[in-house]
């Protein structure tokens, strides 16, 4: 293979100078990232001055942490915490993590996720199936079934403002038979996802994520920039 390959150089790079047993392990406990302490919040002024977009992230009953948007690539947002954990979010869904004791390494079939659609097309009854891979025991292919069970209009308070939102309620059924409810709040006027509560595995506590920079942008606190 090596010998027959046709090689060429990327000269651009030259400028660089510098079952039961199965279920048992699948439900192992999880050591969480994000430092202990008090809830973190940004003032309007801090939000306006930040270079990178901010995300409020609450993992289970841990304090709220502020994550910064580190990378935007492959239609994914990559948010990092001060303690070097990362949440990779694709159209509002956490599809990968790093820095935790048992990380979501891969989620299959993501193109079928109804959340990939424009907000107006996300409707009750839409379903999809995915398989996930986890780092701790090299476990691969754990099925999760998702179904949107309710869509409603509701208000959401952020930055002392009441946003009219489309609340999408999704039920997820995991490989071990347990279920969880995931919630997604979309700003009705812009379609921006403002907040979500989601459970990515039965052994993960609920993740509560607030896209505070998006809210700030809608209120004119932050300039329009990279989005979604």
């Amino acid at each position: 293979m090596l010998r027959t390959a046709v090689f060429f150089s990327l000269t651009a790079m030259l400028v660089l100078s510098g079952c039961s047993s199965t279920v048992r392990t699948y439900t192992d406990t999880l050591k969480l990232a994000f430092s202990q302490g008090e809830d973190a919040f940004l003032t309007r002024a801090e939000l306006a001055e930040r270079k990178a977009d901010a995300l409020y992230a609450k993992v289970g009953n841990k304090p709220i942490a502020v994550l910064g948007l580190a990378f935007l690539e492959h239609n994914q947002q990559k948010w990092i915490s001060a303690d070097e954990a990362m949440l990779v979010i694709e159209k509002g869904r956490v599809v990968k993590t790093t820095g935790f004791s048992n990380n979501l390494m891969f989620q299959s079939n993501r193109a079928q996720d109804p959340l990939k659609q424009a907000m107006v097309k996300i409707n009750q009854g839409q379903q999809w199936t995915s398989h996930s891979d986890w780092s701790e025991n090299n476990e691969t292919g754990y099925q999760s079934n998702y179904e949107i069970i309710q869509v409603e209009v509701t208000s959401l308070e952020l930055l002392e403002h009441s946003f009219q939102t489309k609340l999408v309620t999704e039920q997820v059924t995991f490989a071990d038979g347990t279920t969880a409810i995931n919630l997604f709040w979309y700003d009705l006027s812009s379609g921006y996802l403002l907040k979500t509560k989601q459970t990515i595995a039965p052994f993960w506590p609920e993740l509560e994520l607030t896209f505070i920079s998006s809210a700030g942008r809608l209120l004119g606190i932050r300039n329009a920039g990279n989005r979604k």
Partner: protein
Amino acid sequence: MIYRFLLLFIVVSCSLTLQANPVVRVQFNDVFLDYAQQPRLSDLVAGVNTSANLYWPSASFYSLSSTEIHSLEQKKAKLLQRLTELHNYYAQHGDEGLAATTKKIVLELTPLQLAKKIVLPLDPDTVRIKTSLNPLIDAGQYLLVVAEKPATVALFGAVENSSTLLLNASEAADYLSDLKLLEGASASFLYVVPANADPFIAKVGLWNREFKAIPAGATLFVPLELRHLPSEFEDINQQILDLLVHKVVAP
């Protein structure tokens, strides 16, 4: 105008010089990534991180140092010699089934492409945010293999199949029903060689079974049962494993 030509000449000359003598050269598929100075690991993986569908848990990184490849090839030659002796031993003792299994391993091992595998985290999302996981790469030539998530698991050793489908939510013992084991195959354990981690033993016997998942991109090595091995060949499975770790996996 002459300045433009001069500038072009300088750029082309520098490029050719660096192409000829890069400090670090990394092959990825059919592409060479050349670095004039020692890059960080994050620089290498960022250079090939073209899609969210690349499955980094089964990525592999190899040194293409000719010294190391030569050393591995020498070990392979010695191992092939020993396996041939083992084959002859079985043949002389009328154990045709065991001789055939050994012959199969010889034929399987002979064309194996080897390079020194370097086990370290490769996922760009891991290495670029953690300084401790982002070392400077030593001068030399390397091979980086990463592709979409493999759908199959490679097989090696006392087994007829060369691959089998990667099973969802399963463990090593679940694979046995899909494998056509050859005579002399171990019924109690397998060796698992992950693409980017150290090898480990998976106990799959009825009496010793334990949960070990098979990572995507791994190679399952079905060893010879110890009781079938003459005492002077008791380490043959370990020797095969030591080489198998350095098998170059096709993307």
